[in-house]
């Protein structure tokens, strides 16, 4: 049967259509990934906490706001140039203002200010921040001086070039003191620093309801955060400023406890899963087919050797070997794939050998031999073609096995840290106790994606049935 005909037969069944549809989605998403992701995504971003610092931690997906309580949205404001510049003598004040509507009953989960790449000549710049609230009050909550020139440095002195200076307000002593002052001044509420620490966001985005306890009524409306950078030389420069009012929900798929955007990790998992599954199954199938046909067709010593090796290989328990080799050689994806291929081909070889023996004793081989065909022609033009649909079905069947094996290993914590996979995301969720805390968005999507991907190939293999069995094919035709 030709490929086109086979495809038509597959598409005739419901499972075939569903399988092809799912496969198309998997392939489409996988093809998108290289356009949006750097190849070293795993090391440079996924497993680098700094890359996710400005994200809310363990936030459910944004669409959960459609039902239940309104969690604040995640807001990130970036500016490269100030919205206003004020010159007073030699000093220049750069003002970066960000206005946003806070309409949630819950305050932002954290506030952070980042200043990227500052260079100065004379005196170090001063960074400060104030928040204008809907009730007309303005809280000045930050005052920081960039570290000055050291004796071994010559102007221009550069700061925060590699990584922006990021200040989490609730972790900054100056900010806490400033907030305490603000509450005392405006509302007469006296709180200790410890009391304010856990309630900074609630205090800034609310009105006190008690005169001695950290209890606040939410205050909704328009807020304006203004970040001031004062420099003392006209040549001084500030490259970028960022303000984050972290939300309680995030993106399409939420975040994990490190603030990682799960959507990015899950999306990156598509091509990784397909590459793992397809390349290992293709490689194992090619080896298995070659040795199976060779073994069945040549007989004698070649046959005996191939069969002994296959028997031994299929009887070695794979998991302990994998774990052992990973401990010895390190957590490398290619290692896992190689081992899966090495241990994956013998099963097919054993089946194909017996099929070859059956085909070999049949009249087709005899007839072709009588025509003068060479052994190779008989083996690969006739015997192989007889078994080709079966081989393709086996290859499809083996694909989820490889994906599941990788997921299983990752789940044991033996995944390759340089590439995020669904199994690893799942494992990190379990290790963090996400399932007990109720971080369902961390556990369900990777689990479901693994299942769907495995199911795609099972459906395809099921739909291959009529292709495999000519009798079913004839009745279907």
């Amino acid at each position, binding site marked *: *049967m030709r490929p086109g005909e086979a495809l038509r037969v597959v598409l005739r069944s419901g499972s075939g259509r569903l399988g092809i549809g799912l496969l198309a989605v998997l392939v489409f998403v996988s093809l998108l990934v290289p356009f949006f992701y750097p190849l070293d995504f795993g090391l440079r971003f996924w497993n680098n906490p700094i890359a996710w610092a400005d994200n809310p931690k363990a936030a459910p997906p944004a669409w959960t706001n459609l039902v239940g309580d309104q969690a604040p949205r995640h807001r990130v404001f970036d500016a490269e140039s100030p919205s206003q510049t004020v010159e007073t003598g030699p000093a220049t004040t750069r003002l970066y203002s960000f206005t946003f509507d806070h309409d949630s009953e819950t305050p932002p989960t954290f506030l952070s200010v980042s200043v990227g790449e500052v260079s100065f000549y004379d005196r170090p710049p001063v960074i400060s921040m104030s928040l204008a609230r809907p009730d007309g009050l303005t809280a000045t909550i930050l005052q920081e001086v960039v570290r000055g020139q050291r004796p071994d440095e010559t102007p221009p002195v550069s700061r925060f070039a590699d990584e922006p200076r990021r200040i989490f307000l609730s972790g900054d002593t100056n900010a806490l003191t400033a907030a305490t002052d603000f509450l005392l001044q405006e509302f007469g509420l006296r709180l200790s620093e410890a009391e304010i620490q856990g309630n900074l966001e609630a205090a800034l985005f609310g009105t006190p309801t008690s005169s001695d306890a950290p209890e606040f009524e939410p205050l909704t409306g328009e807020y304006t955060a203004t970040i001031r950078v004062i420099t003392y030389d006209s040549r001084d420069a500030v490259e970028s400023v960022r303000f984050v009012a972290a939300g309680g929900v995030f993106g399409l798929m939420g975040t994990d406890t490190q603030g990682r955007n799960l959507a990015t990790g899950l999306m990156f998992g598509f091509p990784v899963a397909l590459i793992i599954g397809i390349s290992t199954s293709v490689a194992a199938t090619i080896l298995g087919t070659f040795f199976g046909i060779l073994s069945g067709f040549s007989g004698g010593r070649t046959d005996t050797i191939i069969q002994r090796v296959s028997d031994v290989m299929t009887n070695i328990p794979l998991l302990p070997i994998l774990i052992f080799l990973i401990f010895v050689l390190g957590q490398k994806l290619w290692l896992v794939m190689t081992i899966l291929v090495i241990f994956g081909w013998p099963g097919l070889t054993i089946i194909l050998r017996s099929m070859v023996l059956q085909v070999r004793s*049949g*009249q*087709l081989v*005899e*007839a*072709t*031999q*009588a*025509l*003068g*065909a*060479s052994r190779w*022609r008989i083996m690969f033009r*006739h015997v192989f*073609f*007889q078994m*080709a649909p079966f081989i393709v079905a086996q290859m499809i069947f083996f694909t989820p096995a490889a994906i599941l094996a990788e997921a299983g290993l990752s789940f044991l914590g033996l995944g390759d840290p340089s590439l995020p996979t669904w199994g690893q995301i799942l494992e990190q969720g379990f290790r963090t106790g996400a399932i007990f805390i109720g971080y369902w968005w961390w556990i369900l999507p990777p689990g479901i994606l693994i299942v769907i991907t495995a199911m795609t190939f099972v459906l395809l293999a099921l739909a291959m049935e009529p292709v495999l069995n*000519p009798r079913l094919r*004839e009745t279907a035709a």
Partner: protein
Amino acid sequence: MTVQPEIGAAPMLDLQDVAMHFKSRGRGFRTTTVRALDGVSLTLDRGETIAIVGESGCGKTTMGRVSLRLLEPTAGRVLFDNIDITEVKESRLKGFRRRAQGIFQDPFTSLDPYMTIRQIVEEPLVIHGEGSASERLERVEWALEEVRMRPASDFLDRFPHLLSGGQRQRVGIARALTLTPEYILADEPVSMIDASSRAEILALLRELQERHRIGYLYITHDIATARHFAPTATVMYLGRIVEQGPTADLISNPLHPYTQGLLNAVPEPDPANRLAERPVLPGEAPSPANVPSGCRFHPRCPVFMAGLCDVVEPPLVQVELDRTVECHLYGEEGQARAEQDATESVSENA
């Protein structure tokens, strides 16, 4: 119709005392030897047809396979056009492969189900590197027309599973025909196709024989149909040829007790007689893995002579110019015994 061998010329196909023993692992560590062929000699000429008949397992197919060098015989020689092909390497057999072809029993498994009719019939040409693509197509169409699959273009792109058994066998014949061979082994070519197309296929084979002067080795276990197709017949029993002669004579006057039994075992075409009691071959054929001593037919022979048939191998007796039989009844020792028995019974009667 039948072309008599030219006097003095070597026969086209010449099997000389061919034996084919299969070693197989039996129970435990013992190896058993299956003597599928145990010293058979046969010659076949261009334009000639010889039928090989015998019960299942008597070695007919094995003989056919040896004649096509699909098996290397354990002993004996196979000459094709006076060239010994028994021990020639497969790579040096191209000339023979062109001139000798096979038609096989099962038209369902002898054609590659993943090839179109065109690819199947073209394959011998491809293997032997014959002609350009268009020349090969012409040849394929010619072969299909020869087997009366007309118009050929209707069949070229079809797959075998869309054809009937008879049509498939025609494709098999067309494939054998593309290289215009001189010798065709036809191993039960009609036993697996429906009765209605059998006669047609046999008629086609005969027509092709006349046109191309093909020599057929026609294997069948139905001696009755052999009469219409093969002028000469050879009866095999447990790896040996026991009787040979013109088919008509063989049927009207079978000499070997086995041939006699075989003819009695042929179902009576007249339904009225079908239930009539007839002597059939007693017992099952013994296995070629365990060949009886002396005459290998002796455990089942109704006229078995104790002390002779189970001890001494029967001689090959030329009964008439074109008839041979391998049985003590026609040998000197047997004749002597018969005479002795006759005198004894006369003296007893006296």
